[in-house]
């Protein structure tokens, strides 16, 4: 049991560290970068449940992020819904769309599923661009109100960061619980062999649909947080490019690792901000960092950290043995 304890405590530790961060990095700019990290980590966490654990790819996940963001933005601004209702509607709409798309698309495997979800993502972006009367078109949708819940307005960047980090910590805890359960094992079994999973009584199509909808919900929750944070949404933020970036975050963080998802999202979201200092060659260095990570950290950041921990503990054990 001794070894299990830190594992159970880690979401709590993470939550504490995340809550303490803005006091250390009190600069407004850092806080806003960390807020975006938390929002992206939420999407990547959901995508990792789908891709890393259940082995089903989605190249259109930015669309669910966009559906959540736009639905809440439009309902609370144009139609003056209460913000909580708009957010709830945004998440529910994304879940409903995921259900509609998932039922036919998840019958496909591998490249075909990638193509189908890619197509879906492109369609959503075109729809956001073309329905100018509703979404404001390519120039975006402005004037989204700041989030107010139970009479409290998250006006300061710091308070908004606490909300996003808290949501992320909750999502981490729920994901960990799910993975270490009957459902999580069924999903991981589907990843390696749908045949074996079926032979063990797993209703594979139902589980695939479940995790697809769940990952869409994660993305949509991130979307509504995003819309009410920036106060502005534009179709360019929810396109194919961002979908690919999300996949990169999953792979770079570490497939099938909860902490890897958080680390990958935080790393790739903040990296361009740090590289700004390099001015003209920042995109080159960004590419170089990605290439080096893929060569030297095939298991992603999570795999690399595990390897490092193992080396260190062996070394400490070696010292203790000699002493």
């Amino acid at each position, binding site marked *: 049991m001794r070894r299990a304890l830190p594992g159970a405590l880690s979401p709590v530790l993470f939550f504490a560290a995340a809550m303490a961060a803005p006091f250390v990095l009190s600069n407004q700019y850092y806080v806003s970068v960390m807020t975006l990290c938390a929002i992206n980590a939420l999407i990547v966490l959901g995508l990792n449940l789908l891709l890393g654990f259940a082995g089903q790819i989605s190249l259109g996940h930015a669309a669910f992020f966009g559906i959540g963001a736009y639905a809440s933005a439009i309902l609370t601004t144009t139609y003056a819904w209460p913000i909580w209702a708009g957010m709830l509607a945004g998440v529910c709409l994304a879940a409903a769309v995921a259900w509609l798309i998932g039922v036919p698309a998840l019958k496909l495997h591998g490249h075909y599923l990638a193509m189908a979800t890619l197509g879906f993502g492109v369609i959503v972006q075109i729809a956001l661009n073309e329905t100018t009367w509703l979404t404001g078109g390519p120039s975006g949708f402005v004037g989204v109100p700041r989030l107010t819940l139970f009479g409290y307005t998250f006006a300061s960047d710091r308070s908004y960061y606490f909300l996003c980090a808290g949501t992320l910590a909750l999502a981490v805890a729920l994901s960990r619980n*799910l993975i270490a*359960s009957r459902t999580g094992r069924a999903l991981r079994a589907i990843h*390696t062999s749908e*045949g*074996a*999973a079926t032979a*063990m*009584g*797993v209703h594979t199509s139902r589980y695939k649909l479940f995790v697809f909808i769940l990952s869409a919900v994660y993305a949509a929750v991130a979307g509504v947080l995003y819309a009410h944070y920036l106060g502005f949404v534009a179709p360019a933020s929810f396109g194919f490019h961002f979908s690919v970036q999300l996949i990169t975050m999953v792979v770079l963080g570490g497939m*099938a690792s909860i902490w890897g998802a958080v680390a990958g999202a935080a790393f790739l979201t903040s990296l361009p901000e740090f590289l700004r200092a390099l001015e003209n060659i920042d995109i080159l260095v960004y590419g170089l960092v990605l290439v080096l990570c893929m060569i030297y950290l095939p298991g992603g950041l999570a795999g690399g950290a595990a390897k490092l921990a193992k080396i260190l503990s062996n070394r400490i054990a070696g010292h203790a043995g000699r002493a």
Partner: protein
Amino acid sequence: MPDAPEALLAISGLTVAFGGVLALCEADLTVARGSVTAIIGPNGAGKTTLINAITGMVAPSAGKILLNGREITRLPAWKRPRAGVARTFQNLEICSNMTVLENVLTGAHRLIGYSALDSLLRTPRFLRGEAQARSMALGDLAFVGLAEAADLPAGQLPYGSQRLLELARALALKPDLLLLDEPAAGMNIRETRLLGALIRRIRDERGVTVALIEHDMDLVMDLSDQIAVLNFGAVIATGTPSEIQKNPQVVTAYLGE
């Protein structure tokens, strides 16, 4: 049918076609409760297709499959473990992304009662169900002799142990009928002998009826209560090992005219 109570599995007129090829052609087979039945035959005779049809992985175009007297011919594959069927695979289908114990727990999927909501919130029901499943799974691992390896990543096990793990995972389903697709493939003589003893224990201690496809004739002759011979998709002979050895049709199928 006077013998209905003893027959756990009764297959009649089972036909499976892949395009124009008949993989199974009106095959009949009866497996008595509490027996070990070996299914043998030349390559391409339809042995694996027979197991796939029983487990619902291919759809037969004609015929009937009765398990415990209940027709399961059209039952969806994922519901068949509930009806009492478990299987292993010719090419190992171990979940290498999980530990050995988690693999066996996956086998116990249908026996775990809590819901997804219970697991999200770690309710007492989840903890109770998980503890129960865990102790059952450890029991199954100990049964095949892999208790020590419970926390290892499944992919790290040597080949022979992965075969045993698949067996433990299938046993975790608490099946009435266990179908083994070439369980001794790739095993050495010593491992094969231990496997034979293990299959016997599965029948005697667990009360599980076993049907297996196997090419190792020493194992088949030693282990089986009944042997069914498949050739060109049809069962051409059934009987005890000594009857099968003397059957001229079987000798022809194996050695040619």
